[in-house]
């Protein structure tokens, strides 16, 4: 028999997650580079023109979600001569199989690029084992 409070929390989490995904309007999937070093995962996401104060990063149950609302740029009273891209919010999720220490995740937004440091949990870092010769 699951205690009531646990059920309530689980439901709220689910609602929170879907609240973002049911937003109307266009989402753009930012392009990313993901690298792995012995100590951490590094993620770079292209999010030009995002509102840096409102970038949302979540890491729960091995799923990483990044969201960056676009600062509004287009004014109404102009006539377009050429349009090759649209402007909108950025959103993307990732399944992360590595063991990450969520409390140590660091994020930086510079020049339109979101850089995430996802440090690995100590136990999974590769340890060099010295081979003793006889």
């Amino acid at each position: 028999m699951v205690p009531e409070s646990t059920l309530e929390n689980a439901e709220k989490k689910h609602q929170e997650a879907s609240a973002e995904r049911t937003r109307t309007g266009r989402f753009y999937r930012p392009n990313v580079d993901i690298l792995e070093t012995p100590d951490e995962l590094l993620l770079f996401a292209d999010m030009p023109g995002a509102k840096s104060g409102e970038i949302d990063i979540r890491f729960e149950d091995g799923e990483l979600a990044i969201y960056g609302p676009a600062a509004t740029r287009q004014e109404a009273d102009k006539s377009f001569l050429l349009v090759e891209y649209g402007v909108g919010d950025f959103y993307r999720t990732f399944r992360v199989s590595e063991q990450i220490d969520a409390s140590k995740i660091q994020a930086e937004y510079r020049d339109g690029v979101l850089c995430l440091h996802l440090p690995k949990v100590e136990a999974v870092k590769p340890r060099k084992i010295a081979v003793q010769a006889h």
Partner: protein
Amino acid sequence: MVRYRNRFHPLGQFRGEMDRLFGDFFGCSEMAPVEGASPQTPAVNVWQRGDVIFVEAEVPGLKSENVEISVVGNELSLKGRRPDLPEQNAAYHRRERGAGDFNRILRLPAEIAGDKVEAKLIDGVLLITLPKDETAKPRRIAVTAK
């Protein structure tokens, strides 16, 4: 609706080509690229308001020293370099962003006052303000009655 776009990536360039094919077919492209049908990097939006033309491009990861802008007559040249990631001793899980040089020339629908052009680069968005040259502005011609 989720869209995939990255002008530095071959797939993004292909998509750009397809966009351009359809754009030309429907005849809505007022500005023809100077080069042939090759994909254009970076993607730009161009609009005008009164006597000023604006060119905006998304160039995430670039600082002002990575971009070179010049104007001659009615042509705007956009050159730049997207730096590579400096990380060594790392394995790539994904590599979508791309890196390298770009060089693009836009032929604008009016002569530009070269000395009044301004460019701003904020959070990876480059905005170039191009005031039209005096000679390009429409002149009212008085009609004399005889």
